[in-house]
């Protein structure tokens, strides 16, 4: 479709280095009106950096950016004004006016219509910071969709969307492209690429190593191009004994909208229990109650001295100290454990040793162990969080979207590690919005809807369609 059209975005010889890394290495890229261009690659390959350069947010060391028309960017770690309402965020800078004042009614109506048109349900009057991460993602998307830029850059826009939402999201994107918008989308979900993209560029170590038409490649081919080889196999499921580990009964807690309402379930040692559900059905409340950071009613029982490894949902806000090094972050949450201290002192030898192990085992791409975490790519930050949660061989693991933002290769690695932990006798509670992930890992699947469990499936009796219906509250 680009045919004879002129590119609207032209990147020439772009290079960007950070201390110790070449983030983008001599990249040429052009975007044509009406195309959906997928940019894929490993964590830390330089995708976000390239998108920021194209947007004009980051200045390249070298090279030129030519854009014909406005550029919009949906950030990987989105940029919203938390304590403003949804509509205020969406319409910021283009507020409908009545005289010198904002026409709030018109704004509200505008956002409702916009959301409906794009199949992204949202309450325009909600305060953004009270929304779960996935829904915040929609706000950022809507803001860009409403601005209708000639060039739209999307950095992992679907990382926090449910499958059904992804379909409607791409319907929107496709329609936009048909109206002439040039779209570049960064994603780790290769299925999306195959289904919706026209062209694909694969990045590795800052350079574009492959350019192809989506029609001429396959998911496996792409994955190999990204990783530079075959995907590591996920560890096999081994037989385990099922001693009781975590017991939750009649759990109530969380704020009204997204509370848990009378949850009862059990996770036994040596099994992975998957919580399937659409975001906003009480999963955060469940995870927070288990982490002990919100008040709750009901019973949460676990073995007295159980070591718990937690992977929270929001890596930057809840799991990491962004200004600290990997070494210091590797201890967070473990700093009171015997291994991390010598009396009142920090055990610096073990801290460094553990950090090194995390970096090695999870393939964290970083110039050094002392690199500041906020300078790591999103996926690599996630790997640090996952690695830290699993390093002490915990007997109970609560993992909330553990592979969010992680590339295909590393995802397989993380899933493999979870499986190994299970095989070695850990009880794993896996809360994930990726049904595929749950289906491949879980021994038992609980479907959560409106704060309660509405269905339970053993691994050998899974009915995918039925789960989908339960998740949507239809069955």
């Amino acid at each position, binding site marked *: 479709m680009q045919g004879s059209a002129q590119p609207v975005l032209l990147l020439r010889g772009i290079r960007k280095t950070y201390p110790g890394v070449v983030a983008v290495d001599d990249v040429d890229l052009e975007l044509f009106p009406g195309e959906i261009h997928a940019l894929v690659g490993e964590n830390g390959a330089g995708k976000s950096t390239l998108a920021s350069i194209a947007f004009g*947010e980051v200045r390249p060391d070298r090279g030129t950016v030519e854009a014909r028309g*406005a550029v*919009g*960017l949906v*950030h990987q770690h989105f*940029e*919203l*004004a*938390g*304590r*403003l309402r949804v509509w*205020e*965020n969406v319409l*910021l*800078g*283009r*507020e409908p*006016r009545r005289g*010198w*004042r*904002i026409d709030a009614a018109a704004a509200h109506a505008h956002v409702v219509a916009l959301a409906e048109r794009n199949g992204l349900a949202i309450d325009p009057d909600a305060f953004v*910071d009270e929304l779960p991460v996935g829904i915040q993602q929609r706000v*950022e998307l809507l*803001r*860009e969709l409403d*601005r209708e830029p000639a060039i739209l850059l999307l950095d992992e826009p679907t990382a926090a969307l449910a499958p059904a939402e992804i379909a409607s999201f791409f319907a929107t994107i496709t329609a936009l492209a048909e109206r002439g918008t040039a779209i570049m989308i960064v994603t780790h979900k290769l299925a999306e690429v195959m289904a919706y993209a026209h062209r694909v560029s694969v990045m590795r170590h800052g350079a574009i190593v492959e350019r192809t038409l989506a029609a001429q490649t396959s998911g496996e081919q792409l994955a190999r191009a990204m990783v530079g080889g075959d995907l590591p196999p996920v560890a096999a499921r081994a037989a385990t004994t099922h001693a009781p580990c975590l017991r939750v009964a009649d759990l109530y807690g969380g704020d009204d909208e997204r509370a848990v309402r009378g949850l009862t379930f059990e996770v036994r040692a040596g099994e992975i229990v998957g919580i399937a559900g659409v975001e906003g059905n009480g999963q955060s409340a469940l995870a927070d109650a288990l982490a002990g950071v919100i008040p709750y009613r009901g019973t949460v029982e676990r073995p007295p001295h159980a070591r718990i490894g937690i992977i929270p949902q929001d890596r930057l806000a809840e799991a990491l100290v962004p200004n600290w090094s990997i070494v210091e972050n590797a201890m967070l949450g473990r700093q009171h454990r015997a291994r991390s201290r010598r009396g009142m002192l920090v055990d610096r030898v073990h801290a460094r040793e553990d950090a090194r192990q995390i970096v090695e085992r999870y393939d964290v791409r970083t110039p050094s162990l002392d690199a500041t975490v906020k300078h790591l790519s999103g996926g690599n930050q996630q790997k640090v969080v996952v690695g830290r949660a699993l390093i002490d061989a915990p007997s109970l693991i609560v993992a909330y979207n553990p592979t969010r933002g992680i590339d295909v290769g590393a995802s397989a690695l993380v899933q493999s590690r979870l499986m190994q932990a299970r095989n070695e006798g850990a009880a794993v509670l896996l809360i994930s919005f990726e049904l595929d992930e749950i289906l491949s890992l879980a021994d038992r699947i609980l479907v959560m809807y409106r704060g309660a469990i509405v269905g339970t499936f053993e691994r050998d009796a899974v009915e995918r369609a039925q789960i989908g219906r339960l998740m949507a509250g239809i069955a």
Partner: protein
Amino acid sequence: MTLAITLIVLTLIKATPIVYAALGGVISERSGVINIGLEGMMVAGAFFAVIVSYATGSPVPGLMAGIAAGAAFGYILALAATRFKVDQIVAGTGINLICTGGAAYGLVLLFNQPGASVQVHALGSDYWILVLLAFALAAALHVVLYRTPWGLRVRACGENPFAVTSAGLNPLLLRTYAVVLSGALAGLGGAFLSIGELNLYSEGMTAGRGFIALAAVIFGRWTPLGATGAALVFGLFEALQFVLEGRIAWLPPSAMSALPYVAALIALAGITGRVRPPKADGVPY
């Protein structure tokens, strides 16, 4: 005049300079810049109002000069916080020192006497207009912040300047305007002290009112009306102290002076729930 009327009048007068400075604090912090320099900007306003009133023989240019001086230091803070990315608290502290030190020096340079200026033409009874204006401005600022596009953008800036960039606006410019306005308001508050309430500049005359205003901002939860209410409460306690002075024999004299502050502490403990500043308050962009 009855005691009650005295008390009301005194409360309004005492609250006015704090209201001005607190409104300045609200607008600045809402844009994401912590304005520790309010005290210094009040000093600058008070000092230059006197200088210009002295030079021109008329208080109105003095008032303008006070506002301009506050705005100028607001601009310096804005420049430091936006362009030079100086830590805002450092910059504000520096401005406080520069203003108090500069005024002390200026007194010697201009009047050849340390401590206090000569007496100059003041607003006289017209200063009531400034009292009323303070409260009108509070209402106006409330409307501006919550009902106009500019207000929304400023608030967004204080929440997340990057969101503002993503929306195609320039957060640095927004912050600069907000902080300059903040300084102008603080300067007006200072000018009210020196040529409204009084008719001279005297060292230490702001007596920490800029910091009290900062407290009022927090008490008022970063809203113009809230901050004004808090300023009124501080004004009330200051006034109470005057009215009660000498009437309650069993209280030691300085316990009376401590009254506003103790009351503030008790009120503070009584306010339930955490008060949360704007998310990007103090965060450089």
